[in-house]
Structures are given as C-alpha cells and as structure tokens.
C-alpha cells in the first residue's frame, strides 16, 4: 500500500530527472524561430517543420521549390520571347541566355532554405552561384553565403565561392576558375558551379581543364540537360583540339 502511494512521487521525480538531464545537453544548433522569415505561404510549412522535427526535410522541399521557381520562365517586361539556353548550358528556361532574370523571390526562398537548415551546403552553393554568376547579384550571393557561414564556419566551399565572387566582381575569370577548382570534386558541389568553372576555363583558354570538368559532369550528374550539354561541349573541344596544331 505504501509502495502504491510512493509511485506517483517516483514517477514525477523520474520525469523531472529526465527534464534536468535533457536541459544539461544543450541546444539544437539550428537557427532560432525568430530567424525564420516567412516567404509566400511558408508559415504553415514552417510550423510543420518545427512540430514534426523535420527541418531537414522541409529545407529539401523548399530547395525543390526554389529550383522549380528558377526553372520557370519569367515573363519579360518588354514582351520579347524567352531566349533559348545556349552555352553554358542551363537546363532551366529563363529569360536570358544563362539563367539571367530578376527572380525577386530567389533570395528570400534561398535564405528560407538556409534558415531551416543552414548546414545544407549544396543549397547555399547553388543559390549563391546562381545569384552571383547568372543573375549578376553578387551582394545577394554574399548574403546567402554569410548566413550559412554564421552557422557552419568550417564550410570551406562557402569561403571559396565567396572568393570566386570577389574575383568575378573585379573581372578576373582566371582567378574565379582557380577559386572554384578545389570544390569541383566534392559531391556537394552543384553542377551549375561545375558548368561555370568549365565555361570560365574555356574562356581563358584552359581547354584541358574545361574538358576534364565537362567529362566529370557527363559522368556524375543526374541532370540530363547538363549531361547532354557537357557531351556537346566535349565534342566541340575535341574537334577544336583536332584543328589546333
């Protein structure tokens, strides 16, 4: 009988002990909820991400939405038709040759992906690369990278891309290509950045390096448009090399 009376007390003590032990283990390492800035229709999604402990998954879904958004053609204000993508071979159909466009929601959605999961390195690189090299918005690209670096200081690829963006601003394609080079073999390196590096190497006359990057894209990318373009470029480089003494 006495043991029966002690049971609720023992249960309460065990529960509080669990709370105490949990409190001593520290935080989650994710941005606090105050860092989450809602974009269009994101509030309920964010609630789901927090309620089900699925920040990574929701960051993935927002990243897919970002790619869909960037892959949707913008209607030009001057009424001209959308230009078709040529070199450097973007599979998305933007208004512009190489993914140019205004895409006003690109930065907020990119930041939202990182607010949910700042350790999503590929998303940070993809967003910053697109902003800096395709949309000519280096300041926004730097903002994306700096947000990610605030949580993941050891992300050397982010630092390299920051350097590449800096060189790009000063109009030094060789330095940009050199800054991008170390990250190209990394599995997290977005194919878009590889494509950019190959294009820059071709532009500065470093055809062997360009061919090696195109060969890597053709062998490893799951994006068939990039793969097809890489094969085309390899053929062009091979025939140009045949014509060179």
């Amino acid at each position, binding site marked *: 009988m006495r043991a029966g009376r002690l049971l609720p007390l023992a249960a309460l003590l*065990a529960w509080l002990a669990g709370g105490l032990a949990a409190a001593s283990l520290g935080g989650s390492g994710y941005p606090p909820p105050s860092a989450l800035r809602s974009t269009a229709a994101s509030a309920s999604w964010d609630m789901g991400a927090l309620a089900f402990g699925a920040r990574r*998954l929701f960051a993935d879904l927002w990243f897919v939405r970002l790619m869909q958004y960037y892959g949707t053609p913008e209607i030009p204000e001057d009424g001209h038709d959308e230009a078709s993508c040529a070199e450097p071979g973007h599979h998305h159909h933007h208004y512009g040759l190489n993914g140019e466009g205004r895409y006003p929601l690109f930065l907020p959605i990119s930041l939202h992906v990182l607010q949910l999961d700042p350790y999503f390195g590929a998303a940070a690189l993809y967003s910053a690369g697109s902003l800096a090299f395709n949309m000519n918005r280096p300041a926004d690209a730097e903002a994306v990278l700096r947000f990610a670096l605030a949580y993941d200081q050891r992300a050397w690829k982010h630092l390299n891309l920051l350097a590449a963006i800096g060189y790009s601003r000063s109009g030094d394609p060789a330095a940009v290509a050199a800054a991008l080079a170390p990250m190209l073999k990394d599995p997290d390196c977005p194919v878009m950045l590889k494509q950019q590096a190959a294009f820059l190497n071709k532009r500065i006359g470093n055809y062997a390096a360009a061919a090696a990057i195109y060969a890597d894209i053709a062998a490893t990318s*799951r994006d068939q448009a990039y793969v097809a373009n890489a094969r085309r470029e390899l053929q062009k480089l091979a025939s140009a090399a045949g014509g060179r003494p």
Partner: protein
Amino acid sequence: MMRRLSLLRAVALDSFLSGTRDKLFTLFSVFAFTAVYASVLAGVMAVDQEARVLSDMGLALMELTALAYALFSASTALLREAETKTIYLVFSRPVPRGLYLAGKLGGSLLTSALMLAVMAAMHLLLLRLRGFGVPDCYGWALAGSFLKLAVITSFALFVSLFSTSAVSTLVISGIMWTLGHFAPEARFLAEKAEGLRAAALKTALFLVPNLQLLNARDASGSACALPAAALVPAVCWVLACYLGALWLLRRKEF
C-alpha cells in the same frame, strides 16, 4: 526471479505477436512502402540532391508511420483487453500488475522496432535501386526515432489509463509529440522572456520531453551521432510514464 522473467516474456511476446497479427500492422506497412516509394518522385525533382531528399523523406515517413501505429497500439492495448475481459483472466492468476504493464510496453516497443526495421530495409533497398548507398548517420537516425517512439508509446500507455477514449489518448499524445519537438524553441523563448513568463516557460521545459534531443534524423550538420547522455533523459521519461501507469493500473479494479 526466473518465473517473473518468464511471465514478462510471455506478456511481451503475446503483445508483440498480437500486434504483428493485427490487420492495421499490415496496412501501415503497405502505407509505409507506398509512401517511401512516392518519395522517389520528390527525389527525382531534386535532381543532384536526390540522395539527400530520398533519405530525409524516407526517414521522416518511416518515423511518422511507426508513430501512428505505436500510438494507436498503445492507446488501445489496455482498453481492448478490458473490453474483451481478457485482463480479468490475466489478473485472476498470480501475475503482478507491474510485470503485466512492463510486458505490454515491451511488446509495443518490439513491434515498433520491427516496423522500423522492416521499413528501413525497404527504404535502403529503394535507395540501392536508385544507385545510392546507406546515407550517413542512418543507424543513428533509426536509433533516435526508436527512442522517441519509446518515450511517446510509454506516455500514451500512461494516458490511456485515465483518458476516456482511445481518441483522446491519441490526441493528447500527438500534442505531446509536437510539444516535444518544439522544446528548443521553447528554450529560446524562455531565455528571451522575463519575470513570470520566463518562470512559466522554464517550468514547462521540465514538463515536456525534449524529443528534439533524440531527433538524430534531423540533426544539424555533422552532429548526427546521439550522445550516450541522451539515453538518460529518454530512460527517465519512459520510467516515469511506466511508474505513473502502474500507479493508475493499481487503482483500477479488475
């Protein structure tokens, strides 16, 4: 001692086998397979991030499916036995209530573990078919999911002993699951708050199990390995629910 262990094993085995024979178990397994397979679509849309999306989505779906089954199973386990009068038969024999409850909980946890294992095998097979290996920290993610399920299953078992229906148990446990994942946010708010509000939030932090602590599936960066110390709160919460449930079960007249 041996007799007690044998009793415990018998109750746990019965609970486990009746769980796996349940039509709902099959239904949930089929759903899990369909859902995990459907995640291939999202994976394909992520192009070069397919592996990450497939892995994250599969793990989340597995956990939610196992959660739905575990909660349903825990909230109806004792209720069904009381309705079918089976519990009277059990307690008419020299079966201590503590052992009976431990067996029921053990059986439910075994069923959850089996569900997770079966779904993980399906998920890994799917990843393999798409040309990917075992994702980083996969084992930790599964271990974390199991610990979270253990906490919430024992909580549901406790609630089922005083709630009026299985539905209310499901709702209360579902709310606790959600609150448990909000714990880091509650901590953040508590640190920002002042006065009475801060005191209330800090007290709430002790009353809500911090499930995010065990959420290796969603761990940030490379911190996916569950620290051994994370086992302590999980065990404490399960033990607390067990003791609370035992207290309530002892007060019932069977």
